[in-house]
């Protein structure tokens, strides 16, 4: 038997290890996230309350940057453009995603093949989405312009047309976004026991009736999650818009997220970029809270 003090010290070192271990396991992640996510957010809030000259922070100005952005600064226009972009995308993405999920949930042949093909746009990057659709929309040699010309419509390129730029952008974004809704909805549909559908079918309920009164209530919370994710994802999109229109023509597609990018990396107006960045962050929180509230109300 080892002497008493050795046992104790061995016991003590083991207990120190046991005490320190959780922190050794957990803290690297926490520190990394703190430095790369919290610190910049703090930087952004601080900069949004100060004036700036190029990369240097200037004197404290209170909320003047926010007032400026939302009055003369065109911030309201950016927010309005963002809302159109989001609502337009939702109007196409949600029915398309849910509809395709319903189709894929049926016992049909080649289901896996269809599902695989239909998910592909999801794994293509935003930049590539933008490039592919730009090329498809090309006014001189693109197949879309060609098809329209044969119908007697002369389109010189929808992305440079004030009225067509936003719808074209929405279509490209829909292409990239509907698979998420489809995948989420399909997962929810597959948890519905088949007896429920059978019962409704025996009651001779119409397909539409079955969907609206039987299926939809069962998948509502998943659909809501997909709706919120699509909203946030679209609202925060910079890349697709940057590459396709750069915010033009004449600001028709200048969404708030793009404004942040341009102010920060093209005009180097850091106070404007930071202010808009904080506004985007706050709106993200608002969207998410609204959705948590809806979900809670649902469960209660």
């Amino acid at each position, binding site marked *: 038997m080892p002497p008493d003090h050795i046992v104790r010290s061995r016991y003590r070192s083991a207990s120190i290890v046991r005490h320190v271990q959780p922190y050794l396991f957990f803290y690297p992640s*926490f520190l990394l996230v703190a430095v790369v996510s919290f610190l910049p957010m703090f930087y952004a809030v601080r900069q949004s309350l100060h004036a700036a000259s190029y990369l240097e922070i200037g004197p404290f100005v209170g909320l003047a940057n926010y007032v400026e952005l939302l009055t003369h600064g065109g911030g309201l226009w950016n927010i309005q453009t963002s809302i159109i972009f989001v609502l337009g995308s939702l109007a196409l993405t949600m029915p398309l995603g849910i509809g395709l999920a319903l189709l894929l949930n049926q016992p049909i042949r080649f289901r896996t093949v269809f599902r695989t093909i239909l998910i592909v*746009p999801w794994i293509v990057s*935003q930049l590539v989405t933008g490039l592919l659709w730009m*090329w498809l929309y090309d006014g001189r040699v693109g197949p879309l312009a060609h098809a329209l010309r044969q119908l007697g419509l002369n389109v010189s390129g929808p992305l440079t047309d004030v009225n067509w730029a936003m719808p074209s952008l929405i279509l490209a974004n829909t292409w990239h976004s509907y698979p998420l809704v489809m995948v989420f909805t399909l997962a929810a549909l597959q948890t519905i026991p088949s007896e429920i559908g059978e019962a409704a079918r025996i009651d001779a309920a119409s397909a539409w009736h079955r969907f609206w009164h039987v299926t939809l209530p069962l998948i509502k919370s998943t659909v809501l999650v997909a709706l919120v*994710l699509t909203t946030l994802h679209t609202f925060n999109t910079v890349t697709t818009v940057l590459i396709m229109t750069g915010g033009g023509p004449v600001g028709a597609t200048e969404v708030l997220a793009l404004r942040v990018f341009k102010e920060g990396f093209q005009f180097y107006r850091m106070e404007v970029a930071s202010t808009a960045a904080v506004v985007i962050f706050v709106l993200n929180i608002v969207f998410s809270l609204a959705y948590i509230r809806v979900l809670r109300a649902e469960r209660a």
Partner: protein
Amino acid sequence: MTQPVIRARSGRSQLRILGVGITYLALVLAAAFALLPLLWGLSTSLKAPADVLSSPPRWIPDPVDFENYARGLFSAKFLRYMANSFLVVIGSLVVSVGFAVHAAYAVSRFKFAARETLLFLIWSTIMIPGVSIIVPLYLLTVDLGIYDTLFVVVLAYSAWLVPTLIWLLRGFIETVPYELEESALVDGCSRLKAFYVIVLPLLRPGLAAASVLVFVTIWNDFLLAFSLTLRDENRLLQVGLYSFVTELGIEWGPLMAATIGSTIPVVIAFALLQRQFIQGLTGGAVKG
């Protein structure tokens, strides 16, 4: 008496055949919508340079020509961009999955001070959209003198991914029965050893999904890489594609070769590893 019943039934089955027909038609149209932009890009990339701008548009390249690939995808510059992306993916895999799997284990197996609060803080950063922190992150890295290095890009992506990875991996860790570790601990195995030898091997499906998420996120991201790098030699793939558009004036042939060529590997990987992709991507769907 039986006549009307039969007629009604055959009417219903005709309706059903019609329904199935409509289902297939809708799915074929949707599949065409999904593939159209990619196929048009592929077609362009395989055309001879002189045919790229031919009008009316032709879908089948004739002759098939690989010069666009030589000048786009396989140009020295673009190979460098892809190698950079690959390096950053590897580095971020080590850092983010390495950190996250330990943190996820700590969260589901240890009790420690302020555990719930700290976890909440980590997960709350999922709500910070990338676009809100790129500008301050840029300023911060300039202040610290680490701007325009691949090292800082690895750190930033890792921090971006860690919260989601903890979420994803915790789910997998909690499916491992605690009794396995407990019996090892009773046998005198250390905690650390129990984690590495017993738990980690059982997490392989989770680690696969996590790796897919890391790979797709970094391979596809433009915003963060653009914000944190400047020199040509530090550009990642998507920034490289972007520079093809802004710097040279668009040459669609080589551009489509680079675009399609850098996308197809991901598509093929997806077709082979669908389950892991969907697990990883639905986990990562949270981050904007």
